[in-house]
């Protein structure tokens, strides 16, 4: 009895203390290996994730946050319906290219051109997602496999397109021509932060409405919880699958479009793949246990970790590789902690969404 009550009271405290202690030791060891100044590294980390002159770094974190949150929403939309669409990357790339390409064609129309470009990015992303849905429903290719494999053609087809037919040869890089300024997403006044984050916020709100107030959201949620129930109930399974995938792909396409119109102003080979936006988005969606409400928080967290690690590299001369490992350590720690918390809370029957 005695040992029991002792455990009950002190266990959580010990656990948290232990976790903090071990992460501290780990980071210290890594920095020691890298021969870096600990306090300088810490300062660099904080300064470049949320600080900077005129909050410049904070804004760059926000801009990353928009992209990561967007991809997290794209993944979440599908996962919630039990559809493991891990082809976000392909849908993102295809959407980005389509937007850049359309942007060049409609650059004369200014604001309308921006809208047309984003819509074409959405359509491209949705189409790419629908292909994997089609393969699943009519050819029996598991969605997990189909959506993943479609990432490669997306990447290499766009790579070919910007290397050959649509290449801006003058620039010397495999990329499209720079978009004219009138189809760039405008910046917030006196900052280098584009309006993309507002568009993602709009997507977020629309998805909240779809999730909790529409028939489609209702169908899709139930399908995620029990496919056989939905089938036997005579709900329109195929329609739900295609709609959900199209929505997921379209959101990825929007994210690609924002990266093009707001940040890079052209499509460069690999620019949406290297930063792992799609995969980080998937991790973020899983981290919050597929609860859409918490996506902005998760998006900010991941964005801050990335910009912070970059700052550590810049200011404290921590080698890039070590900075990346530290980044992974922090993410694993938080994912582990939050994961166990959310398990606890779902046991207690607290609102699951």
């Amino acid at each position, binding site marked *: *009895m005695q040992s*029991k009550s002792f455990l*009950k009271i002190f266990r959580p405290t010990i656990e948290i203390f232990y976790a903090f202690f071990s992460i501290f030791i780990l980071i210290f060891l890594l920095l020691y290996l890298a021969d870096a100044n600990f306090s300088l590294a810490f300062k660099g980390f904080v300064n470049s994730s949320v600080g900077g002159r005129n909050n410049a770094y904070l804004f760059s974190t926000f801009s990353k946050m928009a992209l990561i949150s967007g991809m997290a929403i794209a993944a979440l939309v599908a996962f919630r319906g039990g559809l493991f669409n891990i082809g976000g990357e392909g849908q993102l790339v295809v959407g980005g290219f389509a937007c850049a390409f359309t942007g060049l064609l409609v650059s004369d129309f200014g604001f309308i051109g921006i809208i047309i470009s984003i819509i074409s990015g959405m359509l491209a992303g949705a189409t790419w997602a629908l292909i994997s849905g089609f393969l699943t429903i009519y050819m029996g290719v598991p969605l997990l496999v189909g959506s993943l494999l479609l990432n490669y053609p997306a990447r290499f087809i766009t790579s070919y397109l910007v290397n050959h037919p649509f290449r801006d040869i003058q620039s010397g890089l495999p990329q499209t021509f720079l978009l004219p300024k009138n189809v760039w997403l405008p910046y917030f006044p006196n900052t280098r932060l584009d309006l993309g984050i507002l568009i993602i916020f709009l997507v977020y709100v629309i998805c909240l409405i779809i999730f909790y*107030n*529409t*028939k*489609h*959201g*209702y169908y899709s*949620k*139930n399908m995620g*919880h*029990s496919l*056989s*129930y*939905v*089938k*036997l*109930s*005579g*709900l*329109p399974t195929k329609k739900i699958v295609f709609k959900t995938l199209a929505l997921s792909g379209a959101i990825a396409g929007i994210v690609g479009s924002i990266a093009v119109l707001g940040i890079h102003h052209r499509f460069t080979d690999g620019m949406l793949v290297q930063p792992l936006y799609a995969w980080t988005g998937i991790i973020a969606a899983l981290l919050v246990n597929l609860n859409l409400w918490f996506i902005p928080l998760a998006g900010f967290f991941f964005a801050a970790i990335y910009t912070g690690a970059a700052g550590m590299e810049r200011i404290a001369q921590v080698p890039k590789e070590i900075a990346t490992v530290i980044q992974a350590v922090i993410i694993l720690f938080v994912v582990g902690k939050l994961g166990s918390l959310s398990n606890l809370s779902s046991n*207690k*029957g607290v609102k*699951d969404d």
Partner: protein
Amino acid sequence: MKISLRDITIDYDHLRAIDNLSLEFNAGEIHAIVGENGAGKSSLMSVLYGLNLNYSGKIIFNDNEVFWSSPRDAIQHGIGMVHQHFMLIDELTVLENIILGYEPDDALGFINFEKIQPEINALLKLYDINMNLNELVMNLSVAQRQMVEIIKLLYRNAKVLILDEPTAVLTPNETEMFFKTLRNFRLEKKIIILITHKIDEVMVISDHVSILRNGKLINSSKLKQTTKIKIEEQIVGKKLPKLNIKRGIIERKKVLEVESLKISTRFSHNQPIDLFIQKGEIIGIAGVSGNGQNELIEAILGVRKVLGGSIKYLQEDITYKSTRHRRIKGISFIPQDRRKDGLAIKSKVWENAININLNDKKFSIGPFLKKKSIKNYANQLINEFSIKVDSPNSSVITMSGGNMQKLVVARELSNNFPLIIIENPTWGIDVGSIAFIHQKILDMKARGAAILLVSNELDEIDVLADSALVMYEGKISNRIPKDIKFRENIASKMLSGIHFK
């Protein structure tokens, strides 16, 4: 040997699951624990076999106070439980399953199967159990699998056996065999704790019976000192209402007509299947589960491939129509597996109160849900079917099995569709809910619904059906009319199987 629970109290968040409960279990006794779902049987047992550590009170085992830190700890001290859902690995043999987790391995980690086999065989002989140790578990019947679970505990030297609803999956014959084994355990002075809903079985097999209601011990006495009626009343807390059987009129109008139906199943050599149901009629399909009943239902609902023949619903040929089409046209379905097929259990109650009728103007406008009126409707069902749940916003997963089933029944019957397909509607639920659901089914019949009732419980078919068919290896018998020899006729066809028609 003796194990006692003293003043056990278990509190979940704001719910007292077990309230200051004391019980004693003696060697060589079969002790039945009965009570409705949510009465606290499972919570109490989870304390006894080391799963629930957050309780107050004491466990006294052979005069020593004990505290198990895990189920593994409990089994090492001789306390084991067989769950309703078996924990076996299909691809392994019986022997491998038995020793799994407790392998008699040598210093290098190799398992000496030659040495262990005779030991287990000796165990089987002691208790007169018939089992081929080298058979793959996937080839075993449900009854045999259950026996494997029990042998597992015997191999781990369990002195206390906790059995959770062991007969829920057995045929009458298998149940008898199972009881024989239990009696052998009793002879060997084991403590046997039997959690069950079936009072009839309690009367046959147990020595001692304890009744739980709302986490409290209502009564615990020798079986001889109580009666079946007393036990039933103590379980429910009041007198059970008698079923109100309105015979109603069966109209000569065929609602469902299945003609020379061939389905893709492993029984296809025994087809085709013919049957029809008329308005206001309950047709029972009896038979041991796994004889093609489920496949037949799937074909009628359109989720299984049809190879030939036809299915007509109100004169319309629906053989190749989609499930959606059929359901919208007016087929209700109450599946056996409520947790998987009947509900999305992680969704909320209101989200499960509707499905095919979502397009109703009452529940949606265009693409949008009318949440408020759906919730009102859910509330209405909750009241009408006396479903015990906090609110329509609760997760279905927090409900007891009986209340989950009531929710399914409420949703499906409230559509007032002409055809209702029901599969084992009272599987694993409490006496009160069973009576309630039976009454609702009879009410639907009186209102003119055609009902197809698949049930593995002979009693259920006997009480509800107007006539019955027996399924055996995919083959379906002629109609057995409801007369004095109804039960006997069904039972004999269930056994003889091949010789009917």
